[in-house]
């Protein structure tokens, strides 16, 4: 007969991978902070808008990219609608990077890594880098003169560090798959991590702010 009190036997969850994962998920973000309806009073500046603008632009980038994928890689060369969707994709990417760079500079001047937020900064920087790679492979996947020239130039850079055989910029089939599968998955995953970390610790308080002010 077990010596554990009956009440403890009832409420203590059994040791299992499922329970461990659930505990991990539940404890990652404080209760109510995953999607809060309140924000600290110091969140009062236009600079905060650029984080959500970056996410909004990323949404438009993915959506327009999906429409381009429906038509296929050559569709936009032969269809005026396809060309317009390509234009939407291009300009949403330009906006995405513009918003992201302003967001990054804003977070730099806030020293937003304070208060155990270093990983939040690191994931943001990695998201920026992965986005550059994604955009770059997009330029290589256009199947036009830009793709020819950019790939011809880029091969020297990537070959010079010995990885050109694995990431062959002269192979548009490989670059297209990196552009539409591997790198978007990386950007998506790191963005989710970044947003979860932001919600975990909340928006960084002003420099030298006292607790609870």
């Amino acid at each position, binding site marked *: 007969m077990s010596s554990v009190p009956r009440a403890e036997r009832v409420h203590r969850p059994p040791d299992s991978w499922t329970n461990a994962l659930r505990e991990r998920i539940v404890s990652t973000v404080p209760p109510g902070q995953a999607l809060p309806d309140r924000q600290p009073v110091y969140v009062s500046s236009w600079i905060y808008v650029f984080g959500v603008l970056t996410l909004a632009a990323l949404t438009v980038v993915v959506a327009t990219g999906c429409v381009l994928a429906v038509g296929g890689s050559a569709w936009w060369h032969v269809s005026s609608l396809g060309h317009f969707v390509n234009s939407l994709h291009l300009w949403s990417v330009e906006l995405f990077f513009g918003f992201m760079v302003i967001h990054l500079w804003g977070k730099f001047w806030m020293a937003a890594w304070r208060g155990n937020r270093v990983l939040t900064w690191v994931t943001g920087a990695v998201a920026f880098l992965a986005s550059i790679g994604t955009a770059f492979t997009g330029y290589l996947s256009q199947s036009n003169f830009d793709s020819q020239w950019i790939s*011809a130039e880029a091969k020297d850079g990537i070959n010079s560090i010995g990885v050109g055989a694995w990431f*062959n910029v002269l192979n548009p089939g490989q670059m297209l798959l990196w552009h539409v599968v591997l790198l978007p998955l990386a950007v998506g995953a790191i963005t989710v991590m970044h947003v979860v970390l932001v919600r975990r610790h909340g928006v960084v308080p002003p420099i030298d702010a006292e607790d609870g002010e």
Partner: protein
Amino acid sequence: MAIPTRTRPVAQQGRRAKEDRTRDSHSFATRPYDLVKEFVAALIAVSLLTVGLAAIFSSPDEPAITMAGWAEAAPNDVVATAAAELAGTSTSASYGAPYNSAAEGQKVLRAPLQKWGGVRIPVDSAALVLAPLTQARADAPTMAALATWRSAAADTRIGWATAYADALGKAPDGNPAAVAAGSYGPVPVLTRSFLDVALSGGLEGQLTSSGNFYGGDQTRALLLLSDGAYLEDSARAQHLGGDQWGMMNETGDYPGQPWMWLYTFWYQVPPFSTSENADAQVWALMMVLTLGLMFLPLIPGIRDIPRLVPVHRLIWRDYYRDHPRRPGQAH
């Protein structure tokens, strides 16, 4: 209203945390804020802005250069490129890894990174010319020239092709018809036939199929095109040269990839602009700078700049106005 946090309190976070007393935001006073409404508004605004920009500015789509287009626009360049491929003096023939072992490749701090990558995409430059001619089942003179080429010793082949490439270089406009008489073996016939194959429009397929119905790899075709002068001349005419910030630009008056400005910048300035190892050096430098960006919060001095330069006073001006510091208290 202060919301309790479940993350570890500062006192439990070790020595570094003791120095950095910044708290989670959940312990600060709050006000109502509709995050979902903000995102939806941002999504609508960005969508409208995107539609406006796309409608007004469209997007560039300069057609790709075809081999037939290259042959029509610059036939002498095609012949010169073919001769260089046969002589083994073209850019790709003397490139090194990953295409061949003809060169050591670029180095960083004496480390031959390019060589270490290995020859994993072997490309025989002479085959870029000979394989299409063979597959095209050309006329009798071409087949005879191919047979002559194949039966000759390697040194003899190189001698013919090098002599012809040099002669083309000396001819007015590189015109094959104006080349001085010399011992070129079958090379003039081979290069002329190669030009004919290119003009026929069949060269792309012969360079990309590799015996496979689905030819998705353009490596050999792009190497051949890059070995000629026409591609670069076309790019420079559009201000896309390597020393024209070409890596971040695109055709027409479009913004291109301005986020690559720093990478492109290094190619414009010494010592990179004059270095034989510029690519490897720029990559190495960018990797260091990238690590610096990622781990900027851990770099003393740089991480202190935001505290020393009071841009944060502007960002949080409402907060600082409502929470003035007491005398002697830092801000």
